[in-house]
């Protein structure tokens, strides 16, 4: 991996947020290093153009943590980030989220769109997404997924964007987030209570928000966002102001944000990181358990497990739905990000074990009996993340016992694909059957 100081810069940003803006306790450990999951995953979301759902109690820094990360990674003054946020409420409309007709031009009989700041800037925050009624959540599906924002007959495409959405726990004013939208989030993380002592410090100190404000640059950026020039030109004009703001942050606060070309370079470096064999086999093992059904061919949310199924010991027996194709992609993205940050040359099983619970927690629908069995367990995490971490632990245990044989089975599969006259290896885990199915599909 190239030594260009980007990782050091990322750690500097992490440290700055952690020490000055978002007080927290570390809650995850990888390779002997401790991190706070909310900041670390937000940082990776910003760098990797990901989508993150932040859950937690009201007032525990869900939105502010995302704002700080967006401001520093994308060099936007906090005032612009605030002015570009979309807040979820039942009266929200497409006009407030995406764009509205230019009324002046409309009076003259012309059709033109005034795009919202939210649709234009790369760092997007949807506050309290679960206060949007289900019907209105579908408005942002396409934008969330592809960065395409359409209004009337016009469209802007965000080449670079990341999305943070916050959600409170269920209360009288919340709705459920529709399954297709939930699945589009790469990771879910909890913004946690920092403990009584750090909370006391937060209450004691003055608000720290102002240190990321810069009224002049904010005004400049608003003018550009409001201007009628083409979106591509706006982006390059905004970049100039953002770079000036980045220099201000470096000089005054001592934290060095990334420029657009830095972020592109980082993404190229991350993309070049490949899985090692254990990371690949372990991820396949998890995916097999989350999608396998011997009876019905695959997991489906409308079908129940048969009594006395041979595979009752695996995760497939504990869950209702099937893992989506977005899951491995989310796992890869964040594992690449983590491996890059730790300056590792490959994605290994430790990276996978660290990111999988956060990529899985919001996507799995557990059976009722599992929920009632585990909800009172002693834990530090919210139930979905706890259950996902437990699931990863269970699969890791299985992987420890079976890794060599499993890799053998995959290697034999590869040789059969290359034309070798071999018999697929047998084993109890669903992955062996999945290998067989792929080989059979090749032969038929």
């Amino acid at each position, binding site marked *: 991996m190239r030594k260009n100081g980007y990782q050091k810069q990322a750690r500097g940003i992490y440290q700055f947020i952690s020490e000055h803006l978002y007080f927290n306790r570390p809650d995850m450990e990888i390779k002997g290093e401790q991190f706070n999951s909310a900041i670390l995953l937000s940082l990776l979301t910003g760098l990797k153009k990901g989508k993150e759902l932040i859950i937690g109690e009201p007032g525990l820094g869900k939105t502010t943590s995302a704002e700080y990360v967006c401001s520093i990674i994308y060099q936007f003054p906090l005032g612009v980030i605030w002015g570009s946020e979309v807040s979820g409420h039942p009266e929200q409309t497409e006009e407030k989220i995406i764009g509205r007709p230019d009324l002046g031009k409309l009076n003259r009989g012309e059709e033109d769109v005034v795009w919202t700041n939210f649709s234009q800037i790369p760092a997007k925050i949807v506050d309290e997404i679960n206060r949007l009624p289900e019907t209105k959540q579908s408005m942002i599906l396409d934008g969330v997924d592809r960065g395409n924002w359409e209004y009337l007959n016009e469209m802007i495409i965000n080449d670079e964007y990341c999305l943070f959405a916050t959600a409170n726990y269920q209360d009288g004013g919340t709705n459920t987030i529709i399954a297709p939208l939930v699945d589009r989030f790469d990771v879910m993380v909890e913004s946690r209570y920092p403990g009584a002592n750090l909370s006391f410090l937060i209450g004691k100190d003055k608000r720290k928000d102002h240190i990321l404000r810069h009224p002049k640059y904010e005004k400049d950026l608003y003018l550009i966002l409001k201007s009628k020039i083409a979106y591509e030109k706006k982006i390059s004009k905004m970049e100039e102001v953002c770079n000036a703001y980045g220099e201000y942050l470096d000089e005054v606060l001592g934290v060095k944000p990334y420029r657009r070309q830095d972020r592109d370079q980082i993404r190229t470096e991350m993309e070049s990181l490949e899985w090692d064999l254990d990371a690949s086999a372990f991820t396949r093992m998890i995916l097999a358990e989350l999608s396998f059904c011997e009876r019905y061919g695959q997991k489906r949310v409308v079908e129940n497990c048969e009594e006395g199924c041979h595979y009752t010991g695996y995760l497939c027996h504990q869950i209702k739905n099937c893992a989506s194709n977005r899951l491995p992609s989310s796992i890869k993205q964040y594992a690449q990000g983590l491996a890059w940050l730790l300056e590792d040359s490959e994605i290994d099983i430790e990276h996978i074990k660290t990111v999988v619970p956060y990529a899985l927690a919001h996507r799995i629908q557990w059976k009722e009996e599992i929920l009632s069995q585990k909800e009172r367990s*002693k834990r530090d995490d919210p139930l979905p993340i706890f259950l996902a971490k437990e699931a990863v632990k269970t699969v890791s245990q299985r992987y420890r016992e079976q890794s060599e044989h499993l890799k053998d089975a995959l290697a034999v599969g590869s*040789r059969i694909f290359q034309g070798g006259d071999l018999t697929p290896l047998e084993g109890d885990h669903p992955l062996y059957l999945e290998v067989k199915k792929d080989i059979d599909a*090749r032969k038929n």
Partner: protein
Amino acid sequence: MESSPPRKKSSILPPGKENWITKNPFEEFGTFAASASDLPLDQIVQSTGAVMDRIRRGYEKLLEEEAKELVWMVQYNTIIKAYEVAEKYVKEIDYTAEDIEDFCFALENTQRIPYLIPGPAGVYISALCNYTKEEEIVLKLSELKTEINLIGFRLPKAKRLMIEGDTGDFTGIGLEGGELVIEGNAKNWTGAGMRGGKILVKKNIGLHTGEWMMGGEIYVGGKVRGLGNIVEGKVFEREKLVYPGKVRYPNLYY
């Protein structure tokens, strides 16, 4: 309008291989050198067998030392002594909660373990539960013919032991802060001498419940046949507090 004949579907695959999936989904494993190791299942069975042997030997030693005549009197001193012996053996074994359940079944279903004496067996199982690394232990004992006594003895704080099935006498005695859940019935002297924690019996409970208990709570989903002399703590019957309450006399609750 003149219609053109349907065009033959073009293929980028080699002739005769049109139906083949060309993408090798296991490509990265192509260079993995297969090792000539044992089947993983064999290894698991082997290692589980070794652990079970060690657990069994510990139990046999306990019987040798504490129940030489195959008679075991439940007295305060005998329980403490048996537990100390059990602790000694259990501490040396690396096992999991699953092994404890396997041992419970092996007690009844295998010839290799000679005697199931409910008292020492319960003390030994309690020691296994108290020293396992897992914080939550589930023992499915509903298919056992014998009700094991003394389950949950001295269950420490931060441990949760769930029993699926019924338990015998002296369940959860001397509980030290843990949470003991019995999905079925528990017999007499449940929670005797417990100092803290919680016992939850989903069905009925026998006589002398909470005898000399010093703290903690006992919740009974069914009926309490009789309370013991309780020093401190709370007993609930179907969510209703029955101790402390008006009726305090041992075994004269109804």
